[in-house]
């Protein structure tokens, strides 16, 4: 026993030479050290150059070391793995920075009174005020948009999956794809031309909802279509073979089986348009008072409140660092939280509605 422990193990052919477990850490320390050294050696001013140099050195050194010890295949693996992790970090860092910054700036503004008061009579440099009017507006406008877009979208998806054949179905799919590329301001302009210019109406909340519905529709159709296609063909056939008509099969078998996916796609589509601003500038206007009626008179919304507080609407934003700034960040944070709540409830509802095995 002691002999085998003390004797150096001769690796078999199946065991290749590997870098030590701490290899990447050593390389990272060396790379950072070299980069920092280079910063002072060449008098680089910013830290960003140093960061990117360190990353590049890390990739080169690790790949080279791995190539010399482990061979070509493992070196390629190290290179690809490092590149993928770097891309992941590059994608996540901005997201985390934005969210943290909004949270840090917006959190001090949040209070019970912020959620229960409107901006009525509160100037940019006055403290107090709140986003109640804008929260009401956003919730109502998005709800109306959902009421318009979700049935149309889900029914379109059912048509495409269950009935759509030939040229007409292809045309529908094509236009859904085209719609998903429509810029939000164009959807706003369409409703603006049609309702406000054409029919001579004044801006009101539900006009914005129509534009939001146009933006939601392709998202709902595409994602619901995917969900319905996931329902196995077997289940439809099992239902037909029991002597069930097609429409009842769709209602009682296909939709319940796809329900969790449909809920997710609906809530994600809602979350997608909740922060939309461009069409609302044209269609809903903005008022500081509480307007509970989305069908008459201008109505505020959270994105529009940020816009207004920053002084972009009226042209006066007050003194730098004034209360208006906190309110703008507070409204932005509330919007982010709203979308977050929608996403989380989408996941919870989807889990509840998913078919269970036991």
């Amino acid at each position, binding site marked *: 026993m002691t002999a085998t422990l003390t004797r150096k193990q001769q690796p078999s052919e199946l065991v290749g030479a590997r870098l030590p477990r701490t290899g990447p850490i050593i390389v990272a320390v060396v790379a950072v050290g070299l980069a920092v050294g280079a910063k002072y050696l060449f008098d680089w001013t910013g830290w960003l150059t140093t960061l990117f140099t360190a990353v590049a050195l890390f990739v080169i050194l690790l790949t080279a070391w791995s190539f010399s010890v482990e061979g070509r295949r493992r070196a390629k693996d190290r290179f690809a793995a490092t590149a993928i992790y770097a891309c992941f970090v590059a994608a996540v860092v901005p997201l985390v920075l934005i969210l943290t910054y909004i949270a840090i700036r917006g959190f001090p503004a949040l209070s019970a009174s912020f959620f229960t008061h409107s901006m009525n009579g509160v100037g940019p440099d006055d403290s107090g005020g709140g986003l109640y009017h804008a929260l009401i507006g956003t919730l109502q406008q998005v709800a109306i948009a959902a009421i318009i877009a979700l049935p149309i979208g889900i029914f379109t998806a059912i048509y495409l999956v269950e009935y759509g054949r030939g040229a007409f179905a292809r045309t529908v799919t094509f236009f859904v794809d085209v719609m998903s590329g429509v810029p939000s301001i164009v959807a706003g302009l369409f409703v603006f031309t049609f309702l406000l210019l054409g029919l001579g109406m004044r801006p009101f909340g539900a006009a914005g909802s129509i534009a939001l519905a146009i933006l939601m529709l392709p998202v709902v159709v595409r994602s619901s279509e995917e969900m319905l296609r996931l329902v196995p063909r077997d*289940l439809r056939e099992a239902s037909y*073979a*029991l002597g*069930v008509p097609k429409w009842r*099969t769709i209602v009682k*078998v296909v939709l319940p089986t796809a329900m969790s996916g449909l809920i997710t796609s609906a809530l994600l589509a809602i979350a997608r348009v909740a922060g939309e601003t461009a069409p609302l500038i044209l269609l809903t206007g903005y008022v500081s008072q509480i307007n509970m009626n989305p069908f008459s008179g201008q109505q505020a919304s959270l994105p529009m409140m940020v816009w207004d507080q920053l002084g972009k609407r009226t042209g006066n934003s007050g003194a730098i660092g004034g209360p208006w700034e906190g309110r703008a960040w507070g409204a932005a944070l509330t919007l982010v939280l709203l979308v977050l709540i929608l996403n989380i409830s989408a996941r919870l509802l989807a889990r509840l509605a998913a078919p*269970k095995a036991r």
Partner: protein
Amino acid sequence: MAKRIDVENLNVYYTDFLAVEGASVRIAPLTVTAFIGPSGCGKSTFLRTLNRMHEVIPGGRVSGKVLLDGEDLYGPGVDPVNVRRTVGMVFQKANPFPTMSIYDNVIAGYKIAGDRKSKNQFDDIVEKSLRGANLWEEVKQRLNRPGAGLSGGQQQRLCIARAIAVEPQVLLMDEPCSALDPISTLAIEDLIAELKTRYTIVIVTHNMQQAARVSDRTAFFNLAGVGQPGKLVEYDETVKIFSNPSEKATEDYISGRFG
């Protein structure tokens, strides 16, 4: 109750592709008929024409006649939904509805179709069908559990219970045991022997021993080559097919000298 099936010179198409050509069979009531043959010879396709499930596939169509007690299933004005209520089907892969409990799966034919019955009537149907499928003793304690939680063999028997719950007159089975272990297969073969007293059964199988064990008559399908239509080569008493077939191709196939 059980009905006879007479197929006369049936051609089955997928769009323009002729999958089965000129098949004629006479299936007597209260018998088990087995369809055997190599993969792709059209036996499953042919089976699906017997309850108009073939046309569910886009481009699926037939020419010729399928007579159920003398009435043409493909006649003008015949509703495929009513055909499928009379001619039930069990599929190769067990496919209980994942959103439903065992109980709801059995009465799915009524529930989904919107037939209302009292709780007592449904209870009776569930017990009768599950007993009919030899599953009652195994699941009676957990009728409200999801059907997807059962084992593969139990799921297939659940699907059989679901098919017989709507009281069809003919039961089609498309390779019902192909995904099952020998013990579950035996359970289903025993079940077929029992169901024979009440239903006309047509079964597609790749297992020739199974065909020999369960069926009264056997039809052998074959195809001349890739892209050629499948044909009904021989249709006779099972005993004769497996002991003294008239066709050389049948003998080659059942003795394993095929191809």
